[in-house]
């Protein structure tokens, strides 16, 4: 049964995706590959300050800022998961419009058999991209 809450979820998803992409376009990607989010007045990464190593989320905003400018290789180097998340965010726009148009609940997607598998794969990729960046840093320092 499609109700008002389902419509709100679809509108919320559409607005969030557009908002994230608009902010990514407005931000100037940091040349060092991380720290772009500080342009929004947000604090620098404390994990990076304490350990001098990037956290798994470091470079996500930079990756989005590069990807929206169609600089996909730089986006990949900043954070491979960021590029994946960027395409995920872009794909949310037509999906949300389709859900609104066909009056389909977003729960039908999240309760589907494959959605949990996609979440697991995305989580694994998130940590794998962190390992990739740590290895890249190690390689660059030698």
């Amino acid at each position, binding site marked *: 049964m499609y109700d008002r809450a389902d419509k709100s979820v679809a509108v919320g998803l559409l607005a969030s995706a557009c908002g994230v992409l608009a902010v990514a376009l407005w931000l100037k990607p940091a040349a060092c590959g991380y720290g772009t989010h500080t342009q929004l007045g*947000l*604090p620098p990464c404390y994990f990076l300050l304490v350990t001098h190593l990037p*956290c*798994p989320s470091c470079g996500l905003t930079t990756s989005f800022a590069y990807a929206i400018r169609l600089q996909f290789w730089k986006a990949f180097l900043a954070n491979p998961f960021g590029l994946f998340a960027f395409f995920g965010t872009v794909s949310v726009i037509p999906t949300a419009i389709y859900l609104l148009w066909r009056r389909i609940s977003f729960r039908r997607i999240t309760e589907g058999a494959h959605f*949990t598998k996609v*979440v697991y794969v995305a*989580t694994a990729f*998130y940590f794998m991209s962190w390992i990739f960046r740590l290895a890249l840093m190690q390689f660059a320092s030698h």
Partner: protein
Amino acid sequence: MGDNTKWALGLGIAALFCCGPVTGVIGIFLAKKDMDEIAAGRAPQLDESMAKVAFYLNIIGLALFVVGICAYMGLAGLRRF
């Protein structure tokens, strides 16, 4: 303990230490999935208390992240005056 709960617990710990927003949201989703399965009686073998621990751990991780950002922005605002 279900696989979703195990993952959610790990992600909750990660959310507390470094990656609050990303792992926190995923952890909440996975823990809630197990909680719903248990509530619907589809997975009586799962441990509800552990699923709840995982769920609240992720919420705490996310909340700490938001509080940290608010505190930083509040202090930065105060410094301007």
